């Protein structure tokens, strides 16, 4: 075991490189390519150096603790198989970086491309080297994300955007399924650690959760590897720049699915469910992909379908659950990566140098680019499975397995035939690729005159094709030891004997190969005439489009259903939401009632007084009346609301809550003033006689339903309250408050001590809320625009002004100024008296009913009275009230009183009290809580006055309905506005 540094470096390097590339200049094509190439090369070398450690079953491991309590660590792990995969990812990454340097146009923002590419490489390495399942899923989703960015790199192109979105939707949805699957695996095994999971194969396979786990994991793997029925995203992803296709769609992204299947092969495979799902998905994909590939007109489309079919082949092999098939799958994964990457790059060169990828337009390119053509032909031959090339070897193994595998079902008996058929198809499309592009008469109408690419652009292909040849001719000397290491890592002691020779003698697989080759050539020859017509899409299957289904599903999900849900639960309309809320509350309260029943308690009741019943007959009628009148008779509704409020207030007095009664009464006054001020700006609503009869059915239903809801809520509350009141009061924290109010808080009025001492932090929060509301109201009103019909002066004022106009001895506004002179004078005289009451309430608050809240509201009433009596301008000419300062100073006062406790080493808002002997006044309580209460007082005054005055000022501003008027700093005066 060596230290984990190299593993960390392998995963981290690409991400670091990606971050660096982001900050390169837009036109730094060489710099970005150099950076990406260097990093990929370093990662390749680092990976290569780990070989001795993973040889013969060794496992490298390193971990960083992240959330140890949840079993989530950053764990990196490398065995022989993942080593091989990491080599593939980094090595082909290097070649692609080199290729992309020449492929990308200097006009594109190339550093961004390399940043995405490097980040993708890092994510891919993260999947490969993850030692923890959750971490694997994380990197898995990261590859989906970066593949989205890479496919959509040319985002000005609509098909690139669509292809990117489709790839992301399909693979990321699969990734979510995978996440759930992995969570299930973790649940079964009790750990997310890969080594532990790999050691718990039996436990997983015998678990009752095996089937859902399998299906979810397979959904993840099959979507990623573009397996039927999720294959449709891959052809659309061909809108990506070709280096992306060469990297993502040959060697990495799409291989992640089969990588995962191989990785979990030891624990998940071997059951019937695995066989049927994986083999049928693989077989369908193999046949469909190879069939569709023959008829593609786009070079990259042909390669995409070919990739789909080869991935299907690998999936099929893994589904067979035999160790030899797994060997073939691993081997073919490697082989496919080499020849397909080189073919994609060749297609990119053809596109780059001739200006088109359309097979119908391309022809006879051999003349113009003989070297590239030769390389592409070798790679295509490997794809077709021609002897002496690597594709042949793995295809032989596939045939051998297909022929040898039997569990006596229709599926496995027909397997050899399907294998040969698919193989013949692949010969046909490989031939089409070679024959259609490089042979025939030289093309005449190409956008560019084709020629050989720069040597270094061709180098990656040369390298990969050389690998194809070497592996194909001398497998024992090249790939054998590495393959053995990888296979041993997956299969362990179950590794079967296998041979990698080119010549096994004349046997069944060779015969099948020969049949497939001849069949493919024959098929291509037969299809010549049909293909020459240049029809897009494959016959028979043209109508079967995964894409169309996908789009329909998306439209249904993201548009129709979303709209329906939005209509039902959306925030655009308040009424349905409130209905739901109330309905839900009623249901939630019904549940315990249904479960436990309801009965009254045994607590003896309070002595009954008929006056109390009378009080609430009046109060209840007021409430019902308010509810009945609120639509058409707003003023009446307000008066009735006040009646209900008064009944509440008296109830407080009745049941020993003087503080509440005082506060309620005072707040009642300010609320009334407030609503009166607002009434003017509401539209007139005049009751039409008989309107109720002409109501539509829907409106009637709505009303009945709302009435039911209201009655249910009311009945429920009655029952709950009655049940509660007839039960004895449990011993609560109140006992502590009562016993210690004087001893620790220094006050006789327990409620006040609670507010300013025991629960002062709560109160502090309340006054902050109050301040915030006041400032919000103020700023909302700054931009207030009244409705057009409310702009003109109120009716009474118009009448008064008209009267003034008609009389020569009166100026306009005189009547208004004289209006209600006597009450106004009384109100002005009351000013000092009300202030005295406020001070009185404030000072006695700690010992007797009163306190900062009540005093604050009283004080603001004193000020409001002046506004009502004299009008806004009259008051503001004589008295400058700065409510915002009151609020600010009040908050500061309260906060500093609290902070002051820190100076004495006590927690925030700890209070201190003492009684002082003042000459002539006597014993005076001097608690720091009084200072806090002063803060409360100031905030309440400031907030109330700010709200009311801001509203009152709306009438004295020059009202303009269309444009937001400026705030009235210099109010024009009218009298009735306050």
């Amino acid at each position, binding site marked *: 075991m060596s230290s984990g540094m190299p593993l960390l470096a392998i995963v981290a390097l690409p991400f670091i490189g990606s971050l660096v590339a982001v900050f390169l200049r837009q036109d730094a094509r060489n710099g970005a390519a150099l950076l990406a190439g260097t990093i990929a090369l370093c990662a390749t070398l680092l990976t290569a150096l780990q070989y001795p450690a993973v040889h013969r079953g060794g496992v490298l491991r390193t971990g960083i603790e992240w959330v140890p309590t949840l079993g989530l660590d950053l764990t990196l792990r490398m065995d022989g198989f993942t080593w091989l995969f990491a080599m593939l990812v980094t090595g082909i990454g290097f070649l692609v970086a080199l290729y992309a340097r020449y492929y990308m146009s200097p006009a594109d923002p190339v550093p961004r491309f390399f940043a995405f590419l490097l980040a993708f490489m890092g994510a891919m390495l993260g999947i490969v080297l993850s030692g923890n399942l959750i971490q694997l899923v994380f990197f898995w989703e990261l590859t989906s994300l970066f593949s989205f960015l890479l496919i959509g790199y040319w985002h000005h192109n609509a098909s690139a955007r669509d292809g990117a979105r489709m790839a992301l939707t399909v693979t990321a949805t699969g990734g979510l399924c995978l996440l759930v699957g992995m969570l299930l695996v973790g649940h079964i095994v009790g750990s997310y650690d890969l080594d532990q999971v790999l050691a718990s194969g039996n436990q997983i396979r015998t678990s009752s959760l095996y089937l859902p786990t399998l299906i979810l994991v397979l959904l993840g793997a099959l979507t990623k590897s573009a397996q039927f029925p999720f294959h449709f995203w891959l052809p659309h992803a061909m809108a990506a720049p070709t280096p992306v296709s060469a990297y993502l769609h040959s060697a990495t992204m799409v291989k992640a699915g089969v990588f995962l299947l191989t990785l979990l092969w030891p624990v998940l495979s071997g059951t019937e469910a695995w066989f049927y799902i994986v083999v049928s998905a693989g077989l369908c994909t193999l046949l469909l992909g190879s069939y569709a590939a023959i008829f593609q007109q786009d070079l990259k489309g042909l390669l995409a379908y070919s990739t789909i079919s080869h991935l299907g082949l690998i999936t099929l092999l893994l589904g067979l659950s035999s160790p030899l098939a797994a060997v073939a799958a691993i081997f073919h994964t490697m082989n496919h990566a080499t020849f397909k990457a080189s073919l994609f790059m060749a297609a990119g060169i053809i596109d780059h140098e001739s200006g088109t990828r359309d097979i119908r337009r391309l022809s006879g390119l051999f003349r113009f680019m003989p070297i590239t053509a030769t390389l592409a032909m070798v790679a295509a031959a490997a794809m077709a499975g021609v002897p002496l090339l690597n594709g042949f070897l793995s295809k032989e193994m596939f045939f051998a397995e297909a022929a040898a595998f039997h569990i006596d079902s229709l599926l496995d008996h027909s397997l050899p035939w399907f294998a040969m058929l698919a193989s013949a198809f692949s010969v046909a499309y490989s031939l089409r690729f070679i024959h259609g592009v490089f042979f025939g008469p030289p093309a005449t109408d190409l956008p560019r005159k084709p020629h050989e690419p720069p040597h270094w652009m061709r180098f990656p292909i040369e390298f990969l094709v050389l690998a194809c040849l070497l592996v194909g001719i001398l497998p024992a000397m090249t790939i054998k030891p590495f393959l053995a290491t990888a296979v041993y890592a997956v299969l362990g002691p179950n590794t079967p004997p296998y041979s990698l020779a080119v010549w096994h003698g004349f046997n069944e697989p060779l015969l099948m190969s020969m049949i497939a080759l001849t069949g493919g050539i024959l098929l291509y020859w037969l299809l010549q005439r049909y293909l020459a017509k240049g029809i897009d899409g494959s016959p028979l299957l043209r109508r079967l489009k995964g894409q169309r289904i996908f789009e329909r599903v998306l439209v249904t999900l993201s548009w129709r259903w979303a709209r329906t849900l939005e209509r039902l639960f959306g925030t655009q*309309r*308040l009424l349905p939401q*409130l*209905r739901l809320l109330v309905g839900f509350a009623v249901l939630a309260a019904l549940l315990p009632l249904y479960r436990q029943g309801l009965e009254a308690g045994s607590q003896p009741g*309070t*002595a009954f007084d008929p006056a*109390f019943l009378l009080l609430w007959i009046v*109060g209840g009628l007021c*409430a*019902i009346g*308010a*509810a009945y009148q*609120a*639509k058409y008779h*707003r003023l009446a509704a*307000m008066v009735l609301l006040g009646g*209900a*409020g008064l009944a*509440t207030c008296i*109830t407080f007095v*009745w*049941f*020993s*809550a003087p*503080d*509440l009664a005082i*506060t309620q009464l005072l707040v009642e006054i*300010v*609320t009334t003033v*407030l*609503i009166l001020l*607002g009434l003017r700006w*509401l*539209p007139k*609503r005049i009751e039409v006689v008989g309107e109720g009869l002409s109501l539509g059915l829907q409106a009637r239903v709505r009303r009945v339903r709302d009435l039911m809801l209201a009655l249910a*809520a009311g009945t*429920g*509350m*009655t029952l709950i*309250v*009655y049940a509660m*009141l*007839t039960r004895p009061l449990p011993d*609560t924290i*109140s006992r502590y408050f009562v016993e210690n109010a*004087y*001893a620790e808080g220094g006050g*006789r*009025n327990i409620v006040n001590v*609670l*507010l300013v001492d025991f629960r002062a932090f709560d109160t502090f929060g309340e006054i902050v*809320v*109050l301040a915030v509301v*006041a400032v919000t109201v103020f700023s*909302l*009103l700054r931009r207030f625009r*009244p*409705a057009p019909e409310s702009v003109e002066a109120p009716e009474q004022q118009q009448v008064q002004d008209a009267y003034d106009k008609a009389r020569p001895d009166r100026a306009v506004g005189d009547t208004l100024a004289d209006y209600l002179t006597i009450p106004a004078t009384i109100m002005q005289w009351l000013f000092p008296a009300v202030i005295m009451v406020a001070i009185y309430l404030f000072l006695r608050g700690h010992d*007797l009913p009163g306190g900062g*809240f009540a005093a604050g509201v009283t004080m603001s009433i004193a000020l409001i009275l002046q506004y009502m009596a004299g009008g806004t301008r009259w008051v503001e000419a004589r008295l400058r009230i700065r409510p915002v300062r009151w609020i600010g100073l009040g908050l500061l006062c309260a906060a500093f009183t609290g902070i002051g406790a820190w100076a004495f080493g006590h927690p925030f808002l700890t209070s201190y009290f003492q009684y002082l002997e003042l000459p002539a006044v006597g014993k005076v309580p001097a608690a720091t809580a009084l200072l806090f209460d002063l803060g409360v007082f100031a905030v309440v005054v400031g907030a109330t006055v700010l709200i009311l005055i801001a509203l009152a000022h709306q009438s004295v501003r020059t009202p303009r309905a269309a444009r937001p008027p400026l705030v009235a700093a210099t109010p024009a005066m009218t009298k009735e506005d306050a």
Partner: protein
Amino acid sequence: MTELVFALAVGILTASGVWLLLRPRTFQVIIGLSLLSYAVNLFIFGMGRLRVGAAPVLENTEAVDPALYADPLPQALVLTAIVISFAMTALFLVVLLASRGLTGTDHVDGREDPQ
């Protein structure tokens, strides 16, 4: 009996409040919220049970007997709730005025019902 009247009072206030809450006009909703806050305040207050003539103001400060006084905790909670509900009414009123100015209707959804 007293308890039943109190409970009915809370119920009537709640029912009236909820009915108004579900009406489409903003003014109705404001009145409804006020009624509802009466109901809720009484409800919370009732948590301390109904006591006559036992205001939580200490008579003598030596050897305090908690049984002699009404529960002060719900009272303290309701006291702040009264002031906060005023603030809420104010905020809501201003929002409805602004919405009325901007949308030209006093429907809570900012537009008249389609039917």
